[in-house]
């Protein structure tokens, strides 16, 4: 039985915006599944539907074999949900936060007490357990938030950008908890901007863009689909080059053989080609003839970043996302 099964899922908001346009995918039991996409692609909407927080418009969605709307109450007992923002009650202590979540999951007495102690140790909050969580650091709050989704031992854990806004050390810690949880058999469904971790931990992933799934498979499958090396070219007039210069450069590149794809990126121009290394001299010579000055040129084997760029035309940049989140906190999410 798959942990999550979605078919032709559609969500149209009241104002007519179609956030999710008929997506289908499956997450196997025990899988570490990455759900990627640029901002506004429909990731959060999908997670909200799967976690019974939002009604779907049409299509079918099952979580742990249960129809999410018909069996919403049962689904809620089997899943843990972590939102984008850290959500804890800062007036309560760490322990009280966990106990409250436990109570709401209908756990009580000794069983709950023991579970809370156990979790506090797991997320390294044993010493701070009885301090008000308002005084916790950002990383501690996030760990508490994560622990609070685990009190009832969920079978499936949904995480919406759990490490965004964390310092690298806390981030690594969260990822290592998630890895550990997955090893105990918990299914993990995660949206994130951190592709290196996705590459390392996710068994499979799906990329969402404009409400549609544009690619899915294992990280290595998706990378090998690109079947080419990446050559990144930066033009001299600033990082990106002016429009006309860029067009001229692309025209020149178009005249060369062996190139599979030319893509615009914030760093300049990205060229995909088999045996990219051999093409570099050709590119340099051609640009020299056309009098286009290069400020840098680099060759690398494809990463998930390239997969993402190829399918969405955009790059994921966690730092920028942090900024846009801070400025658009209230207007961004639709209800």
């Amino acid at each position: 039985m798959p942990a999550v099964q979605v078919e032709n899922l559609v969500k149209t908001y009241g104002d007519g915006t179609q956030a999710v346009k008929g997506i289908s995918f499956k997450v196997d039991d025990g899988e570490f599944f990455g759900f990627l996409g640029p901002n506004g692609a429909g990731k959060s909407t999908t997670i909200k539907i799967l976690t019974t927080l939002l009604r779907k418009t049409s299509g079918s969605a099952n979580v742990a074999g249960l129809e999410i709307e018909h069996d919403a109450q049962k689904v809620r007992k089997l899943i843990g949900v972590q939102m984008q923002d850290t959500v804890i009650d800062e007036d309560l202590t760490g322990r009280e936060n966990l106990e409250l979540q436990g109570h709401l999951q209908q756990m009580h007495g000794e069983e709950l007490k023991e579970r809370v102690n156990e979790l506090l140790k797991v997320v390294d909050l044993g010493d701070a357990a009885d301090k008000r969580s308002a005084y916790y650091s950002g990383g501690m709050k996030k760990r508490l938030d994560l622990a609070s989704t685990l009190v009832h031992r969920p079978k499936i854990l949904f995480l919406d950008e759990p490490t965004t806004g964390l310092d690298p050390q806390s981030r690594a810690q969260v990822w290592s908890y998630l890895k550990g949880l997955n090893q105990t058999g918990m299914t993990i469904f995660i949206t994130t901007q951190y592709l290196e971790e996705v590459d390392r931990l996710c068994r499979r992933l799906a990329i969402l863009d404009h409400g549609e799934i544009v690619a899915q498979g294992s990280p290595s499958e998706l990378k090998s689909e690109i079947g080419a090396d990446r050559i990144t070219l930066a033009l001299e007039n600033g990082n990106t080059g002016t429009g006309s210069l860029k067009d001229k450069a692309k025209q020149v590149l178009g005249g060369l053989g062996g190139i599979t794809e030319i893509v615009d990126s914030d760093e300049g121009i990205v060229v995909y080609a088999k045996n990219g290394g051999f093409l570099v001299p050709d590119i340099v010579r051609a640009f020299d003839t056309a009098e286009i000055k290069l400020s840098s040129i680099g060759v690398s084997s494809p990463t998930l970043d390239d997969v993402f760029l190829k399918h969405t035309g955009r790059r994921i940049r966690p730092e920028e996302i942090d900024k846009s989140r801070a400025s658009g906190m209230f207007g961004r999410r639709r209800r």
Partner: protein
Amino acid sequence: MSLASDSYYMFLRWMKKLVRNPILLFFSLFQPIIFLVLFTQLFSSFGLLLGGINYTIFATAGIVLQNAFSSAFQSGTAVVDDIKSGFLTKMLATPASRASILLGRLLSDAFRVFAQSLIILVLAYGLGVFPVTGFIGYVLILFTVAFFGLAWSGISLALGLRTKSAETVFGIAGTLTFPLLFMSTALMDKRLMPEWMKSVSAYNPISFAVNAIRDLIMIGYNWNSFLLSFGVISLIAILTMGATIYEFRKVVS
């Protein structure tokens, strides 16, 4: 039964939050206490106009009630906080009963008004105010005020759920407080009001509650005024709870 236990834990959460933010208690108790200690002294000569009674005794009923709605109005802003922080969503992702989210909050509001009113009544006792109906009078007063606070919370809850803006809730609450208070019998007997205000205050729900409490303090058991006030408060409660449940459903679904 999960509704009862869920509501209890929600109630407990709000109580902890309140105790850990004493500033909130200070804000809602400060004004009534100033009224009780200073206002009644400043206007003590009103007692003469009312036939030689102690004005502090007269005004206590109004002041206890004022305290009820100034704290009930904080309810809406607390819920706005939960919406903004995502805590509401977090609760909704658990199997906890939906109704318990509202019920826990309302119970905490009622309990809080109960406790604050008790503080004010104790202070008033120090100033020589005690109900002629004795202990039972105290109990009846406290329950009436708590019930009134509950009904009144509904207004701020519905506003908070609808506008999702603490500023709006505060703005509307702040604007409503004094006109409603002054156009009622809370601080002045209707015999001394201008004609037009007399008619307004006769329909002001605050007047009904104040009259019932004042009777318990000054006259004795007046079951007519007591039941009438209960009826009026129930009516407000039905309206405000209806609006709150309607808005809550929109937020939750």
